[in-house]
């Protein structure tokens, strides 16, 4: 250090330094104060807010799905229940070689090889600790896996509940089924309520009473870390006073349906395309509502693959189609009691006179021939015998005198041409033709006009008229109850799952047919009883020897028009163009408790095809031996 330096003034330098140190100490203190001020702001002033944010960070809400209510028939037999199921799940982080595991599982037939790619994708896209469902297992499959569990690290069996329909196809259309919640479903429901639920009612009762059946989700708070993994051994945390609410189970639903009767109907219709509906005329209870062929709703609950659904959908016999409510059929001669009643009610001349049936009918000034049915010539006919023997010619004349306006008005009062308002969806209104309807439905002036010939066809339930089996059963119930009407219903009560307390639903009366005189009702009832009891009655063969009195009317409806000079020949027609058979009945005649409509497609006359089905249902209902034997099965 030999450089020339100005002399250091030690005293002055020390004072300067000291002043700087003091200034620094003051600044340090101030800055520390500033930090503390900030901390007070964070930890005292905004404590509440940060505390909530911290709580929100670590608390995840796990939804708890409610247990779906049961569906029971009127006798308490279970139509839809929840049974344990086994799901094969993979936990991605525990798996070393997923593909190898999948191949092994495929060999055991636990996993569908077609799903392999999808599953690999799925496992790779999830968070490492979130279970991925590989397949639903049957009890047997679960057992197969259980003994080999040690070969599969990271693959587990998880228990859950799945909807089960013990009667399978028997009540498929009425009860419906549940399926995976779709995007459309989500638009109609409160997502929060379905947070833990993965299935929802899709059709039938399952859909109509979804609100009752589903219940309300609960939740359980759980501690999660930053990755979302649930921490189960976190007890020391004062924040984690975990809250929860138990789910509120859905209500049980009790139906008017009698599953034993339903099973009898299913057996009676086996191998046929058809439908049967039975209604209690005293309250509108739908005792039976069946459409065959049907499908197994359990396949939907388990989850149908696209291919399986396509196969069901493409089936020519339309198993997914609910014929009982959506099938439209020409009613044929089953309309005769109604038009007969109309003839009496409107005091037509026609019903006061005898008429000769020569096998054909011509409108005045027309060459068109309206034929009698296969019965040929009936000879002298009264209203009574025309119903008992089902004479078309008698009704052609009656229709002409009634005219389409009065016919339409009268039939509409019985519910023809409109939805009955049953409490499940999918109902078709059918069609009761009228002048107004033609005017609105058609576009050209030519077609819009109502022609007298059309009135003639309408008189025997052909032409434009179309009914659903449900409509026909409903109208039959109205007829049986002499004009007292109830809305057909499947739901009769809901029941609290826990207390068992039932909440019965009152039957809903509809506008009665009040102005028809009691004698007129009686005349028709007598004629329908005659059809099942008199020597030449159309339903005698199928209804002979009953222990109860039964009123019935057969119907045979052409599916295709037969040209003037052609003869209907069942043998030469394709099966799908053969006649439909119909039958309506109620019993006992003096105090009806059950009204039935049956339709059998393309098997010919109602007396031979549809009436036996009704007979078996009635026998079952009135408890003959056969029915008792049937009961023992369940």
């Amino acid at each position, binding site marked *: 250090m030999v450089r020339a330096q100005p002399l250091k003034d030690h005293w002055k330098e020390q004072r*300067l330094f000291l002043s700087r140190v003091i200034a620094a100490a003051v600044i340090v203190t101030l800055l520390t104060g500033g930090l503390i001020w900030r901390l007070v702001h964070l930890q005292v002033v905004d*404590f509440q807010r940060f505390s909530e944010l*911290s709580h929100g960070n670590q608390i995840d809400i796990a939804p708890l799905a409610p247990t779906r209510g049961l569906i029971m028939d009127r006798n308490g037999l279970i139509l839809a229940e929840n049974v344990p199921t086994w799901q094969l799940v993979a936990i991605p982080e525990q798996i070393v070689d997923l593909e190898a595991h999948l191949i092994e599982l495929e060999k055991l037939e636990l996993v569908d090889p077609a799903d392999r790619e999808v599953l690999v994708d799925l496992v790779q896209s999830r968070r490492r600790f979130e279970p991925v469902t590989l397949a639903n297992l049957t009890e047997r499959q679960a057992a197969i896996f259980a003994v080999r569990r040690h070969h599969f690290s990271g693959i587990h069996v998880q228990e859950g509940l799945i909807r089960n329909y013990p009667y399978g196809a028997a009540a498929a259309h009425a009860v419906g089924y549940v399926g995976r919640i779709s995007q459309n479903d989500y638009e109609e429901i409160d997502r929060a309520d379905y947070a833990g639920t993965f299935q929802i009612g899709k059709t039938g009762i399952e859909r109509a009473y979804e609100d009752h059946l589903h219940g309300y989700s609960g939740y359980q708070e759980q*501690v999660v870390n930053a990755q979302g993994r649930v921490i189960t051994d976190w007890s*020391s*945390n004062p924040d984690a006073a975990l809250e929860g609410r138990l789910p509120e189970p859905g209500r049980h639903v009790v139906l008017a349906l009698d599953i034993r009767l339903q099973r009898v109907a299913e057996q009676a219709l086996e191998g046929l395309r058809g439908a049967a509906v039975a209604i209690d005329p005293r309250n509108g209870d739908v005792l039976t509502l069946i459409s065959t062929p049907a499908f197994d709703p359990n396949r939907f609950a388990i989850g149908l693959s696209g291919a399986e659904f396509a196969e069901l959908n493409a089936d020519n016999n339309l198993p997914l189609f609910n014929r009982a409510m959506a099938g439209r059929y020409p009613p044929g001669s089953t309309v005769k009691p109604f038009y007969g009643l109309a003839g009496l009610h409107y005091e037509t001349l026609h019903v006061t006179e005898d008429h000769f049936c020569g096998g054909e009918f011509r409108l005045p000034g027309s060459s068109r021939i309206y034929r009698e049915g296969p019965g040929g010539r009936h000879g002298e006919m009264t209203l009574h015998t025309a119903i008992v023997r089902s004479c078309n010619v008698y009704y052609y004349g009656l229709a002409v005198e009634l005219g389409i306006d009065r016919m339409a008005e009268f039939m509409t009062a019985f519910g023809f041409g409109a939805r009955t308002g049953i409490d499940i969806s999918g109902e078709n209104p059918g069609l009761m033709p009228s002048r107004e309807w033609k005017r609105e439905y058609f576009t050209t002036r030519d077609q819009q006009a109502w022609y007298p010939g059309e009135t003639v066809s309408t008189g025997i339930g052909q032409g434009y008229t179309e009914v659903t089996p449900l409509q026909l059963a409903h109208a039959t119930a109205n007829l049986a109850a002499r004009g007292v009407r109830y809305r057909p219903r499947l739901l009769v009560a809901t029941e609290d799952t826990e207390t068992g307390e039932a909440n019965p639903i009152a039957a809903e009366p509809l506008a009665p047919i009040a102005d028809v005189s009691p004698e007129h009702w009686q005349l028709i009832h007598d004629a329908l009883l005659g059809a099942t009891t008199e020597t030449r009655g159309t339903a005698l063969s199928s209804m002979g020897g009953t222990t109860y009195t039964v009123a019935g009317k057969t119907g045979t409806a052409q599916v295709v028009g037969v040209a003037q000079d052609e003869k209907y020949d069942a043998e030469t027609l394709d099966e799908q163009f053969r006649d439909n058979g119909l039958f309506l009945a109620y019993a006992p005649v003096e105090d009806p408790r059950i009204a039935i409509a049956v339709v059998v497609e393309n098997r010919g006359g109602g007396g031979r095809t549809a009436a036996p089905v009704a007979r078996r249902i009635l026998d079952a209902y009135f408890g003959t031996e056969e029915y008792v034997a049937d009961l023992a099965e369940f």
Partner: protein
Amino acid sequence: MDYPLLLTILLVAGLGMIVLYSAAGESSSAIVRQGIRLGAGLVAFFALAQIPPRYLRLWTPWVFVSVLGMLLLVMLVGDVRGGAQRWLDLGFIGLQPSEFMKLAVPMMVAWFLHDRSLPPKLPQLFVVVLIVAVPALLIAEQPDLGTAVLVVAAGGLTILLAGISLRIIAGLSIAALVASPVLWMFMLDYQRTRVLTFLNPWEDAQGAGYNIIQSQIAIGSGGTFGKGWLNGTQANLGFLPERSTDFIFAVMGEEFGLVGLVTLLLLYLALVGRGLYIAAEAQDTFTRLLAGSLSLTFFFYVFVNAGMVSGILPVVGVPLPLVSAGGTSMVTLLAGFGILAAISRHRKLLAP
């Protein structure tokens, strides 16, 4: 031996270990490792405390030049870790020469001003600026903005203590303000993001702002008395990032609350106060400036880290002194305190 100094250091380090045990997920191995670092730091502390400051002064230019040489070496052959070239691999240990600059720069500045009359004149200031700027730029280039800022701070604080006139301070402040847009242009993208994030962390709460938001949630949710040791949910459930290193202040805030943080800050304040007292008592320019600058730099550390974690400063990778897990920082800090202890010990011998 300056026992008040040593005792306060041990208190802070002990408190740090307790917090670290929780922050590291109740890992005792983390504590053992931190204990080893503390041990190594204490060895440096006691060794340096034995060296009379005048020897230290004589060695200063050599120390500075060799650390500068190491920095250049890092630039050429350094290990790249986490995108930055900061380490010299010596085979058995990774060395971070930039850390040593935190000591070497204030020593060099103090050395340079020792013989000169204070306050320094403008040409001398120019030299001092070079002493600070060259290593700072080398470190910023690695890139290690945090350490560069600390090195600049260490040098700058020395100059301030040297009695630089207030006019120059004002002038420099204005110059800095004017230069900040230029600085902005030279900043790397991630550095710019940090500044923007600091200004509004909620802008990208799941991305860039995540750390700072989670750290404020941790501190804020601790409240006055904290959630209790080992009970910090933010820390233990992984919401808080870097919780055993840069963000350990937030862990302490969450578990020990305002009371814990104020206690820690007061302990730091006591350390800084003790250091300034030693500086005020020191007998020559070199020791005075060095002691003062080491103390103030230490406070700067604390303020930058606590300020960043509590959201009043942008995120800069500065550990919380004596508490954050990490070896180099611990050793450098304790070495600095060792120098302070030496200055404290030898002040009376040099009394005029």
